[in-house]
Structure formats: C-alpha cells, structure tokens
C-alpha cells in the first residue's frame, strides 16, 4: 500500500513537475517577448469578417513584471469581403498592471500605456463590417438602451496615445470625411459605473464633403477635454474642454446625460473669444464663395452661450448667451454702403419648445460709414411669435455721405448734417391684426443743420437749422433761416417756420393709408407759424412779404389766426376760417371760407394789375351749351373763371386805399366767392370825393359768356370827381360834365361780356339815379349857346337849385326820365333818350317864363330843334297828371326806390 501510495504520489508529483515545467516553458515562451504573431493571427482569423495580419506580436511579462504588455508591429486588418484594408497600425503597444489586477479583489485593471502609431482607419468600412458581424451572430443586438458595462470593475488607463492616425469615412449617401494625422493622448480612470479621464487630440487636416461638394478642406482641428462619467446614469460631466479649428478656439463645459423617454438632458456652456471675422470668412466653403465675392469684413467675435434642457422627443435645449462683436468693418459690392465701423453687444434667449419664447436684448449696436453713424439698443421679445420690440435708435449723418448712395436718377445733391433719435415700440402681431396704428408706437427727433440741397439742378433748399419731432400721431417741424428756390416758380425765404401736426387715428384704422375719407378718419390737427417770409414767383409781379403767418387745422376747419402780408405798396392782414375741406375733397360739398381782410393801405390799381390775368392758364373749356356763333376771336380770350367748389366770404376793412387815382378811406364790406360767382357785397368806403357803396357780381358760366353786375352808390360826391372815377358815366349822362357841385349817384347795372371782356350790348341792363343841389353849370360852348338862345341874364349865376335824374339802360338805349332844371328865370322839365352811339332825342318842357315844348334831336355836332306840345308839364303836380304823366311818375318811382333801397345808412 505504501509503495502504491509512494508510486502514486511520485507519479502525481512527476506529472505536476512536468506540468509546471511545461507551463514554465510555455509562459517563458509566451511572456518573454518572443514573436507570437502567427499564433495570434491564427486565433484572430477564426472569425470571417476581418482578416488580420501581423509582422510581429510580443507579449512580455517577465521583463516588465508586474506589467503585462503587448506589442504589435504592422498590424493590418482587411475586410474579408472586399479585401480592402480597413485598419492598419505600424506600432501598437499596450501595457497593464497584472499584479494589481490579480491581487485586486474587485478586478481593478490598470492600463499603464496604450499607444498606436502610424494608424490608418477606414471608419465607414469598419462600421459596415461590424454591422455584418452583428447581423450574422446570435448575439442579441445592442440598442441604445442597453446598459453599458466595462469588463472590469475598475479600469485605469493612464497613458493612451495615438500618433499619425489617418481616418476615413465614406457613406453610401455621398458623405465623405477624412481625418489626417490625428494625434491623441488620453487617460481614463474607471471604477464601477464611474469613470473620469481626459484626452487631447490634434488633427492636422479635416476634410468634409457631401456629394463631391467640399465644405471643408484640410482644416486643422484641436480638441481637449477633461471629463467625468457615470455609466450607470449614462451621464457625462465635461469638466473642462477646449476645441478649435484653424485658429479658432472655444471651450465647452457642462453635463450631458440620458433622460427619460430616450431624451438627452444637457447643460452645456461654451465660450469663444475674439474670433477674427476676416478669418472666418476665409473658411466659407468654396461652394458659397461666389456669394461673398469681393466682400471683406473685419472684427472680433466673442460668444458666451449655454444650452440647457432636453433634446429629443420634440424637445430642444434652451440656448442663452451673450455675443460681442467689436472693431468690425464690412464692405461688399452688393451693399452700397461701406461699413467702416460696426459693433454689437447683445444677449439672447432662444427657446424653440412649445410655449417657449426667443428674446434678444441689444445693449449696443453701432454702425458707421464715413461720417455717418447709427446707434441702436433695445430688446425684442417672442421673436418668432408676437415679436414685441422696444428699440432706441440714434443716428448722425452727413447728407453728403448719404446722397451718393441714392439713385442718380433722383438728381439730389446737397450738404448738411442730420442727427436722429428715435424710439420704436410695438409688436408684429398687433401690426398684423390692427395695422401699424394698433401695433407700433414710434417717435423720434431729427435735427438738421447747415442744410443746402438741390434737386435736379432746379429746386434748391437751404436751412440753417431744422428740427423735426415725429410721433405716431404727431409731427412738429421747426425751420430757421431757410430758403426754397424752384426756378422762377418760387423763391422763398423765411427766418422761422414752425409746423405741428397731430393725428387721432382710431384703432379701427387697419392701414396707414386708407383708400378714402383719410382726413376724416385721421382727424388731423395742424398748426403752422411763419415769420419774416418772402416769396417771389413768376405769377407774382412783386415779391410777397409775410411778416407773420399763423394758422391751424382741426376738425375739418382751417383757422388763420393771423396772416400779415405786404405786396408792392399794399399791406394786408388776413384772418378767418375755412371749413368743410374734406367734404369738398370728397366732392360732397363746397369749401367754406370766412375771412377778414384788414389793411392799413392798399393800392387797388397796383393790386389789380398784379392779379390781372391770374387763373387764365389751364382754364376750363367752354360750356357745352355755348352757341355755335362763338367766333374764333371770342375763343382767343381767356378770361378769369371764378373757382367752383368753394364758398368764400371776405370781410374787408381797409383804412386807406388808392383806386383809379383816388384816395379812398375806410373801405368796409364783404367779398363773396360762391361756387363760380364772385360778389363784392355792400362794400362801403369814403374818399375825398364821396361816400361810396358797392355791390358787384362776377360770374363765369362759360368763357364767352361772363356776367358783371354792379350796385353802386356814391353819396356826396363831387361831380367832376365822379366823372373821373367812373368815366363811363360821361357817356351815360353827357350833361354831367357841364355841372360842378355835390351830387348823389345810384347805379344798378349788369351785362354779359365775351371772353375778351367786351360788352354784349344786347345784354346791358341797368338803372341810375343822380341827385344834386346847388349845382353850378360850368361855362361851355353848349351852355353859352343855350344861354344866348334863352337870353340868360349875364349877371345871374349859372346855378341849378336841384337836379334829380332817373334813367334806365337797356341795350344801347339810355332813357332819361323827366327831371326839373331851374336856372335864371327858366324852369324846364327835361327827358329823352340817349343812345350809346351818342345820338339823342330829348324833349324839353319849358315851364317858365313861357310854356312850350321843345324837341332836341341829333348829335352834339348836329343839333336839331323843334317846337312841340308840352308833355310833362303837370308831372310834378299830382292832382293834374294825365295818364302818361301818371305812368311816367310810377315808373320813375319804381326805378328810384329800387335803386336807393340798397343803400346802407352809415352812422357818422
């Protein structure tokens, strides 16, 4: 038994020794750095997807114990299907701490070093191969929700490096990416579900294209990161990182983790500082280069942003941040303005989730171009929703710097400086829903100085200073020391002009410019002032000086509170109101004006010569009812046509005036223009010759059929001055020029005129009355002849006690109704007819010293006398009148009373 046990234990012992020796020999072979490449390749090639080739492989334990290292040389992996190389590495080295792993109770693996040199990887092919591998195996597929777990409870990788790695990726849908010369160093310390580490990578060249369109070519990239990760919760904490491409760097810190529902939860911060805009432009892909051809830009861009929230399942992170653009300039052929300076300091909040809002806040925005500056600050809320905005904008500019950017076709040139401050508040939703009035509140002030502008070399405007205050419903304009010149149309200067405009637009106004009823809808209120103005124009024979002008417009009423004018030798002040303007514009009524015309001195002759012919150009055509008999000569005339569609009342108060060489004073009355009819109503005045009262009417129904009517009264007039003032009266009453003294003259006369203001004799109609007392008959040949014929006493005064003549004018007939003349021993009643051709047919009833009738016919140069029975001897003896005398007296009363009834008694 003992020998059996002995033999048994010896055998077992020998066997163990043999096994130990064999293991020792084997371990010595494997872990002593001997080439195990064939062995390793044979094992690796047992799968069918990849083909592995190795020049050498060495597993070293003894020399480096306790580290176990693996060293591969010229590792090549090919796709067995395509026989193309998918991965190669010139040198692969990995070392782990075997002692620590073996002695660890929890499987701690410490990777002392991993390095790969001279690497080539075809990532796309590798992924395809992996897909084939996963598809062909029975291993359950790994989905995104599969819990990740390292094969080791704790792993530390302190020195991981990759050098000179070239990685390609090419997808079937045309996406190509290539990484050239990737150098990577990394370390990792994992314990259970937690890991931390870092890496630093440099790529010498990154190339990216889609469908052969290159978006990035050989771009240097850099990335480095220190991170922590919890594999259990699938969370990554980026403690510190820096990324860069070309010369641009940015940092990224924060947390990323898997959230419920497959979403990614993140809170990432990124910063970039002073990126050169010019260099960024150089990175624009070639495919877009054409769009920015000729464009140049300078400046530094800095950004500090945060992305927080969930990504996935309809959620996107909220992005907030600040952006700073400094020292920028911009120039592009497609932009007419060279931006010499530009800066932006803004913050933003972008939330694209449901009920999220995107907001902007601009601390500072400035743009400059030459001498022109633009400043802005403000905020915009709910940018992709209601777009509520609140901005303050400022600008200062030289007109000479702005005008070159306007189209040459405008023909504007000029100099001056403009400073603008404006505030814009509102919301886009309100504008869309309620119109600009409902959604926008804008106001601003523009200050202009040294303005000197020209338009098309014909219109020029200059102003030393101009201020414009603009609001949504108001505008105020003040101009100082300005001038406007437009050829010979107008040349105006003034020392100050103020203009104020306010509107009250109801919320119901959907648009800024409603199609109709604009004025009524806006309820505009306008006020204007002008001081020390002067206007010259080709249609003004003299310059019009405006000492002061002050008017306002409100509630469809224009109120001229003061308008002081001077023209030629005349001065006048206009004031009053103009109403129903909007009605007239809409064709629903007439403009009504009620004005006061006050003047210290008016030269009527001069004013009439000024305005003679005004309004004749572009006049209305003749009425359709015009007769066929209108001659060419008639058509030649172009008379003044009274405006239609307007009703004007002018109350005159002229202290002193000159008319037809006569000085007249205290002219008071009304002038009316009423829809095509002009009326001078009850114009009373006094002169050194008489008290006068005039009512006149002028109508222009058609060019060749004008109407003039007069109701003219002269009281206490000197007859010689009456003839001077009304020369035609000499034709009507030729005997008047034989008298001297005071008389009353009453005239009602009307006639139509042709287009050249010539009388239409068939339309002359009128009545006149002359009354005089103690008239002196001037010596004349006719008087001498009559005196000699009637044997007047030479010593007697040629005085007529009284004279009362009534006459009518009808066509070319002037009928002088019987009137009594008393002189010397004679008393006679005269009557007759006087024709416009200066022929006459008079009848004289001599009452004393003898009773006889005398007919005087012919012309002044060819008088014919004839005795006839008396006709009116009892005309002024009512109880003895015959039928003819009674009828004649009735007609005289009718004429006289109708004429005098229009005289206004003046209180003196």
């Amino acid at each position, binding site marked *: 038994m003992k020998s059996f046990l002995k033999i048994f234990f010896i055998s077992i012992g020998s066997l163990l020794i043999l096994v130990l020796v064999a293991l020792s020999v084997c371990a010595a072979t494997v872990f002593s750095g001997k080439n195990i490449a064939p062995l390793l390749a044979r094992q690796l090639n047992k799968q069918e997807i990849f083909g592995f080739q190795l020049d050498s492989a060495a597993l070293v334990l003894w020399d480096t114990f306790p580290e176990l290292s693996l060293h591969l040389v010229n590792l090549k992996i090919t796709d067995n299907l395509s026989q193309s190389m998918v991965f190669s590495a010139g040198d692969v080295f990995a070392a782990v701490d075997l002692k620590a792993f073996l002695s660890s109770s929890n499987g701690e693996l410490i990777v002392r070093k991993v390095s790969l040199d001279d690497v080539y990887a075809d990532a796309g092919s590798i992924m395809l191969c992996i897909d084939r591998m996963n598809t062909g195996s029975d291993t359950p597929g790994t989905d995104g929700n599969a819990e990740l777990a390292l094969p080791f409870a704790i792993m530390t990788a302190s020195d991981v490096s990759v050098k000179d790695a070239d990685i390609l990726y090419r997808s079937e849908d045309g996406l190509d990416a290539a990484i050239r010369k990737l150098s990577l160093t990394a370390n990792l310390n994992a314990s259970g579900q937690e890991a931390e580490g870092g890496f630093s990578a440099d790529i010498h060249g990154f190339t990216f294209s889609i469908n052969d369109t290159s978006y990035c070519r050989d771009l240097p990239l850099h990335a480095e990161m220190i991170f922590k990760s919890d594999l259990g919760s699938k969370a990554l904490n980026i403690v510190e990182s820096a990324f860069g491409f070309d010369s641009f760097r940015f940092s990224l810190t924060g947390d990323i983790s898997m959230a419920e529902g497959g979403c990614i939860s993140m809170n990432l911060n990124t910063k970039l500082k002073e990126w050169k805009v010019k260099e960024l432009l150089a990175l624009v892909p070639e495919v877009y280069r054409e769009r920015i051809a000729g464009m140049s830009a300078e400046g530094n861009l800095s950004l500090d942003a945060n992305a927080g929230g969930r990504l996935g399942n309809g959620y996107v992170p909220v992005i907030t941040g600040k952006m700073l653009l400094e020292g920028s300039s911009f120039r592009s052929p497609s932009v007419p303005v060279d931006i010499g300076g530009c800066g932006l300091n803004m913050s933003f909040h972008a939330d694209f989730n449901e009920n999220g809002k995107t907001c902007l806040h601009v601390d500072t925005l400035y743009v400059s171009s030459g001498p022109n500056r633009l400043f802005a600050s403000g905020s915009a809320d709910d940018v992709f929703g209601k777009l509520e905005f609140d901005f303050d904008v400022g600008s200062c500019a030289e007109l000479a710097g702005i005008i070159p950017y306007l189209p040459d076709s405008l023909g504007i040139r000029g100099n001056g400086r403009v400073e603008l401050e404006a505030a814009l508040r509102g919301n886009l939703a309100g504008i869309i829903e309620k119109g600009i009035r409902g959604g926008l509140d804008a106001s601003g002030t523009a200050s202009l100085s040294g303005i000197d502008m020209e338009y098309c070399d014909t219109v020029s405007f200059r102003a030393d200073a101009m201020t414009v205050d603009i609001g949504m419903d108001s505008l105020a304009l003040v101009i100082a020391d300005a001038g406007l010149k437009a050829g010979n149309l107008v040349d105006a200067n003034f020392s100050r002009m103020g203009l104020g405009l306010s509107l009250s637009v109801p919320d119901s106004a959907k648009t800024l410019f409603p199609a109709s009823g604009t004025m009524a809808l806006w309820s505009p209120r306008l006020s204007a002032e002008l001081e020390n103005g002067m206007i010259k124009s080709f249609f003004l024979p003299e310059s019009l000086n405006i000492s002061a002008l002050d008017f306002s417009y409100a509630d469809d009423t224009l109120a001229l509170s003061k308008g002081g004018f001077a023209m030629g030798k005349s001065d006048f002040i206009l004031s009053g109101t103009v109403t129903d303007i909007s009605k007239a514009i809409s064709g629903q009524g007439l403009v009504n004006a009620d004005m006061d015309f006050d003047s210290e001195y008016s030269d009527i002759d001069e004013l009439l010569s000024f305005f003679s012919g005004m309004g004749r150009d572009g006049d209305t055509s003749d009425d359709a*009812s015009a007769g066929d008999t209108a001659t060419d000569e008639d058509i030649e005339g172009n008379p003044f046509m009274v405006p239609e569609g307007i009703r004007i009342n002018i109350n005159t108060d002229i202290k002193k005036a000159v008319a037809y060489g006569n000085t007249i004073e205290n002219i008071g009355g009304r002038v009316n223009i009423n829809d095509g009819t002009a009326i001078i109503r009850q114009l009373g005045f006094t002169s050194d010759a008489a008290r006068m009262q005039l009512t006149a009417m002028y109508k222009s129904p058609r060019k060749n059929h004008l109407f003039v009517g007069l109701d003219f009264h002269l009281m206490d007039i000197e007859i010689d001055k009456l003839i001077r003032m009304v020369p035609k009266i000499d034709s009507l009453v030729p005997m008047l020029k034989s008298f001297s003294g005071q008389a009353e003259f009453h005239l009602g006369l009307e006639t139509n005129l042709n287009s050249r203001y010539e009388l*239409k004799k068939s339309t002359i109609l009128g009545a006149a009355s002359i009354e005089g007392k103690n008239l002196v008959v001037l010596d004349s040949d006719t008087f001498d002849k009559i005196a000699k014929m009637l044997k007047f006493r030479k010593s007697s005064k040629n005085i007529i006690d009284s004279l009362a003549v009534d006459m009518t004018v*009808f066509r070319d007939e002037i009928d002088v109704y019987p009137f009594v003349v008393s002189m010397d021993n004679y008393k006679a009643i005269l009557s007759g007819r006087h024709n416009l051709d200066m022929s006459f047919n008079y009848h004289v009833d001599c009452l004393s010293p003898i009773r006889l009738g005398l007919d005087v016919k012919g012309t002044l140069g060819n008088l014919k006398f004839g005795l006839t029975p008396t006709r009116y001897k009892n005309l002024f003896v009512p109880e003895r009148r015959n039928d003819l005398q009674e009828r004649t007296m009735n007609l005289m009363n009718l*004429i006289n009373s109708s004429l005098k009834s229009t005289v206004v008694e003046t209180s003196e």
Partner: protein
Amino acid sequence: MKKTVLIALASFLVICITSCIKDGEQSFDEGLLYGKWQSGTLHYRYDTDHTGVTWDLADDVMENEGKKFSWSLINEEFTHIYVTEINAYGTKASIPKVYTVIVLTATRLEYEDDFGKTFSFTKVK
C-alpha cells in the same frame, strides 16, 4: 218792337264797351303773344305766366342765358319790366320798358316806344 229792343240792347253794349276803352286805344289778344318771336338775331319769348326771355344770337347768347322779364299787355300798352340779377339787401333794380302795340297777329308783332322807335317781329314756329 222786338227788333227795336235788340237794337237798343246792342247799342247799350257798344256804348258800355267803348266807354271802357280810352280814346284812340286798341286792345289786343295777349294769347297771340305766347311763344317765340324773332327779329333778325334778336329773340323774345312770352310765356303764359307773363314772364319772358329775350336773347340775341349775335352776341352769342342762348335762350337759356337770355334776360328775363315780366310783361303785361293792357289794351295797346305793352310793358316789359326787367329786374337786375344782382341782389343787394334783397332788392333789385327795376328797369321798365313801355311800348305801344301796333300790330299783333298770330305771325306778326309790331310795337313802338315813346320815342317813335318801332320793333317788328315774326312768330317763330
């Protein structure tokens, strides 16, 4: 006897009628005046309401632009009263023209004024 009474009545009527007419005056039927009358280019129109219009085509004046007047015909006294259009304080100047009718038939009108000037018109159809 009956014949004597009729003669007496007729004589009485003649006496009554002639006593209403002044010596040397004629009476005319104003109904003959109604309508338009023409003398060269000069026109008159007499309306039944005793208004009328006169116009002269030689002056390029149409009928609707003519001078309006009122008229009366009492026996042979033919009166036209024109009123100026201008209206100051509601009163207008009146211009009377009195003529003596010489002939008035359905087609011819002739009258003269106190100065012996005669006017002849023919009826416009």
